[in-house]
C-alpha cells in the first residue's frame, strides 16, 4: 500500500512539471523572420492543439492565452504562435495604422511552419483551433494538402468573414479601386484602408486585397475544402457577424456550439464556458 502511494506521488511529481508549464518558443520561420510562440506540452495520450490568435494579435491575447492555459492544465498540448507579420520577435499586437506588408498567404505559410515545428517534435496529428480571424488562416491551411493533413479537426471559436455587404467592414470603393489597380498592374504603394474593425488599415494594396477577399462566400468555400470535422463555438451575444452566421455554418457542415451570453471575445466568465466547450469537443473526439 505504502509502495503504491509512493508511485502515485512519483508519477504526479513527474507530470506536474510538464502539465500547465508554458514554454516560450523562438522559431525562425521559412521567411527568415524569428517568430515567438507559447507551447504547452501535452500529457501522454492527449492531443495537441494549434491555437491561432485573432487578427494582428499575439499569443498573449487573453482569450487564446487563457484557453491555452486551461487546456494545458487539462493535459492537452497547446501551441499558440504569434504571426510575425514580418516583424522579428513580435511581442506586441500590431496597430491598424502600422505598416502591414504581409499578405494572407505569407501569414498562412507561418502556420505551416509551426505545424512543421510540431512535427519535428513528433506530433503528427494536431487539433486546429482559432479565434476570430485566426480561423481564416486555420481553414486556409486545412484546405491545403501539404500541412492540412496534420489537422485532425478544427475548432473555430467566433469564426468571422469580411462582411462586404454591409459596407461597414470594408470600403467597396477602396476595394474596387484596389482591385482595378491590381488588375492594371500599378505599383504596389502603401495606403490606408477600411478593413474589418480597422478604419485606417495601412497596407500595400496586395496585402489589403489578400485580406479583404475573405468574404462569407470565400470562407464557406474554404470550409467546403476542409475534410476534417469542424466545430464552431460562438457566443450567443456575439454581434460581430450577422445573426444567421451560425446557421450558415451549420448548413456548411460545421458543428455548432453556442455559448450562452458570450460575446465575440468570450469575455469575463464566458472564457470558462469557452474552455469547457472546447474541452468537451476535444473529449468527444476520437
Amino acid at each position, binding site marked *: 500500500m505504502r509502495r503504491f502511494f509512493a508511485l502515485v506521488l512519483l508519477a504526479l511529481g513527474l507530470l506536474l512539471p510538464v502539465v500547465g508549464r508554458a514554454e*516560450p518558443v*523562438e522559431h525562425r520561420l521559412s521567411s527568415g*523572420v*524569428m517568430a*515567438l510562440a507559447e507551447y504547452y506540452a501535452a500529457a501522454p495520450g492527449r492531443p495537441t492543439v494549434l491555437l491561432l490568435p485573432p487578427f494582428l494579435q499575439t499569443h498573449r491575447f487573453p482569450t487564446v492565452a487563457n484557453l491555452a492555459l486551461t487546456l494545458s492544465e487539462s493535459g492537452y498540448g497547446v501551441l499558440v504562435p504569434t504571426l510575425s*507579420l*514580418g*516583424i*522579428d*520577435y*513580435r*511581442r*506586441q499586437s*500590431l*496597430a491598424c*495604422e*502600422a*505598416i502591414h*506588408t504581409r499578405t494572407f498567404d505569407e501569414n498562412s505559410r507561418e502556420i505551416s511552419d509551426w505545424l512543421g515545428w510540431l512535427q519535428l517534435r513528433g506530433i503528427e496529428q494536431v487539433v486546429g483551433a482559432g479565434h476570430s480571424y485566426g480561423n481564416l488562416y486555420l481553414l486556409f491551411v486545412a484546405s491545403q494538402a501539404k500541412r492540412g493533413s496534420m489537422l485532425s479537426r478544427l475548432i473555430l471559436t467566433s469564426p468571422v468573414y469580411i462582411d462586404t455587404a454591409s459596407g461597414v467592414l470594408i470600403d467597396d470603393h477602396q476595394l474596387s479601386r484596389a482591385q482595378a489597380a491590381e488588375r492594371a498592374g500599378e505599383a504596389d504603394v*502603401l495606403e490606408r484602408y477600411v478593413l474589418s474593425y480597422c478604419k485606417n488599415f495601412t497596407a500595400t494594396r496586395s496585402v489589403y486585397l489578400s485580406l479583404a477577399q475573405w468574404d462569407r462566400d470565400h470562407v464557406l468555400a474554404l470550409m467546403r475544402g476542409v475534410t476534417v470535422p469542424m466545430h464552431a463555438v460562438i457566443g450567443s451575444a456575439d454581434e460581430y457577424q450577422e445573426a444567421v452566421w451560425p446557421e450558415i455554418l451549420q448548413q456548411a457542415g460545421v458543428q455548432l456550439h453556442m455559448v450562452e451570453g458570450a460575446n465575440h471575445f468570450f469575455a469575463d466568465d464566458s472564457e470558462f464556458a469557452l474552455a469547457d466547450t472546447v474541452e468537451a469537443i476535444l473529449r468527444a473526439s476520437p
Partner: protein
Amino acid sequence: MRVPRLTIHQYGVGFIVAVLSVFSILGVFSYQRIIHFQDRIHNKQIERGHYEIEQHIQNLIVEVGKISQQIAEWDETHQQLRNAGFYDYWRSTRLPAQAIYADFVIATELYDHQRNALSALPGFGLPKRMDYRPGIFALQMQGRPVLVSVQAIILSANKSEVGGYLVMVVDLMRALLGKRMAPYVDMQSLSFSLQEGDPVPAVRLYERARFKLIRDENLERLVGAFMQSIMTVGALLFMTSAVFFLFIHQLVTRPIRSLSNHINNLRQGLSSSSNILHTPVIEIQNIYESLNNYRVELTQANLDLDDKNRELWNLAHHDALTRVYNRRAFDEDWRHIRETVAGRRIEISFLLFDCDRFKPLNDTYGHAIGDQVLVEVASCLEGALRAGDRLYRLGGDEFCTVLVECTPDGARVIAGRCLDKIAALDMQAIGVNEALGVSIGISNTTATDRDRLDELPKLADIAMYTAKRPGQNNVALYDSDMLEDSLTLFSSHITAVVFDAIANKRSLQIHYQAVSNLDTGRVEYYEALARIQDEDTLLYPSKILPVVEDRRIELEFDLAVIAQIHRDLQSGAIPTGTGVAINISGVSLVNPTMMEHLMALPQVAQGYQLSVEVTETSLITRLSQATTHLKQLQRAGFHTCLDDFGSGYSSLRYLTDMPVDVVKFDMGLVQSLEANAQSSGIVRALANMIRDAGYKTVAEGVESEALLNIVGDAGFSHAQGYYLHRPQALPLASGVTRGRLLSVP
C-alpha cells in the same frame, strides 16, 4: 576717570557724533550682514540653480532614455530593421504618432546592426554610418546644443542579438525650456558650452550649463526696504539730533551763556539789566532768579559789611572812652604820614599831651570820674586843634596829635590853645574840686630829615617830661639839651643791664636797711632794697624801676629779687630773730606765680619774720585780687605793709579795706613833722589814729636825730632812715646807728 572739560555745544556735538557714529557702524554692520545674507542666498540660489539644471538634465536624460528604449523595443521599429521599404513613412508618420514620442525630438534615425543608416538621407546631419556607442551624450550640432541618444535595438529575448541602433537627436533647449518653469534659473539665459563633434557625456552636461538666476524680487525688495529703512532712520536720527542740538542750544546753552554773561557782568560791576534772561527751563530760570536774589542779598550784605567794617574800623581806630583816635589809628596814620611827607620840605610838628597828677585824681575820685575827666580833656584838645587834625589817645592819660605843615611857632600856638581850653574846663561840673593840668611836649622837624621825623614821638616825649618840670608852663618844645636828661630814662644801656640782672642775677644785689622798733630800740627787721651792679656803678631803684615799669617786667624783676633774698636767707647772713621786708609791685602781687614763690619763702626763713610791702598806688588796680593775696600771705605768717602812705591821694578807705599790719608813712609826710604846727599836728594825729587802730606805724626818711625824736614823740612805733641805718649789702654790720644806739638781737 577724568572727564574732559568742554562746552555744552561740544558735548552736544560729541553726543550727536557718537550717536550717528554708533548708528553708522550699526548701519554698515547691518548692511554688510544683509549683503552677506544676500550673497549667501545668491550662492544658495546658484547651487539650487545648478541642482535644478542638473535635475532637469537628469530628468531629460531619463526621459530621452525611456523614449529611446521604448522606441527601440517597439515592434514596428523591429519591423523597419527587417523591411525598410516604408522607412520614411514610418519615421515621418508612425513614429511621431507614438504617445511617448516628444516634440523636442528633432531627428530619429535607425541604423542596422552594421551601423548603417536605414535611410539614404539621415535627418539633421546624422551620419550614414554611425560610430557612436550606445548611450546619451551632448554636443553641438548645426549650431544648437543637442542630446543624442544611441540605443541598441535588441531583438531576441535573451538580448544577445543586436538588431540595429536607434539614434535620436533631442533639441536640448526646447526640451529644457518646455519643462516646468524653474524657480531659480532664468531658462531664457540658459546655454551650454559645447563644441561641434565633441560629445560630452550627458551626465556631465550640467557642468557645461551657463545660465542666469531669476532675480529674486522679494529679496531685492527686502534689501531695498532695509536700506531705505536704514537711510530713513539715519535721516530721522540726524534730524532728531539736529533738533536735539537746537533744543539744547535754545533751552540750555543759550540761557547758561546768558547766565554766565550775567554773572560776568555782575562780577565786573556792570549792569546786566539789558540782558534779562527769559527761558522756558524752570531750573535755569530759578537759578537766574536765585542769582539775582543772591546778588541783591550780597549787595545788601556788602553794604552791611561795609557798615560793619566802618564800625569795626572806627572801633579799632577810636578810643572807646573818648571817641578820639586810638593808638592803632596813630600807628597807621603816623606810618602813612611819614611815607607821604618823607623827603619833602614840609614842617611836621608832633604834640604829646599828658595829664598832670591824673593817677592820684583817678585814685581819689574813682574810675568813673577819671574816665569823665579824660573825655573832657579829649574834647578840649580836639576842639583846640585845626580842622582836619586828629587827636590820638595813646593810652591812659596820654594823647598826641601830628600837625602837618605846622611850624614850631604854630605848634606852640595850638598848644597854648589846648591849655586854654583845659584851663577853662569846669572841673566842678564833673565833681572834681581841683584844677586839671596838662603837660605838652612838642617836637618839630622838616620832613626832609627822615631820621628826626621818625624820632618825633620820642622827642616830644622828652619835651613833655621837660614840660612837667616847674617853670615850663606845661609846654616845652624839644631841643637838643633835653636829650641828655632823657638818656637816663631811655638809656638802652640801663635797660640792657636790668635785663641782664634779671636773666643772670649776678649783678642783682639786695641791700638791707634796718627798721627799728622805737619802743625797744632794737632792729626788728630789714627792708630788702634792690641794687644792680653796673661795672663800677651801682644802680638804684630810681633808675631801675622806670625801666622795669616801662618794659612791663615788674613780675620778672620782683621774682629775681625774691630769688636773691631766698639765697640770702639760706646763706644765714641775715641776723636771726629779725625779719625781712620785701617790696612787691602791684602787678606782681596779683600774680599767682609770685604767690607761689612767696609762699615758698617761709620754709627757708625759719627764725625770720617776713613782710611784704606794697604801695597804695599798686593796690588801685585789681584791689580785690590784691586783698585776697594779702590775706593769704597773712595766714602764711607774713606781715603786710602799706608803703609810701601819704605820697599820693591816700585814702583811709584803703586802711579799712586792706589787710595790712604795718603802715609806713612816706618820707615827705614824715619830714612834714618838722614843718609848721598844722602839718605836724595832722601827721601826729594821723599816726596816733592809725596806731590806735592796731597798726604798726613806720616813719620813713628819718635822717636826723631831731626827726627821730619827733617821730618817737609823734607816736610812731618804728622808724627807718639813714640816721638809723644806711642800706648795705650782706654781711650786715652790727647795729650801731648814727645818733642813737639801737640794739640788734
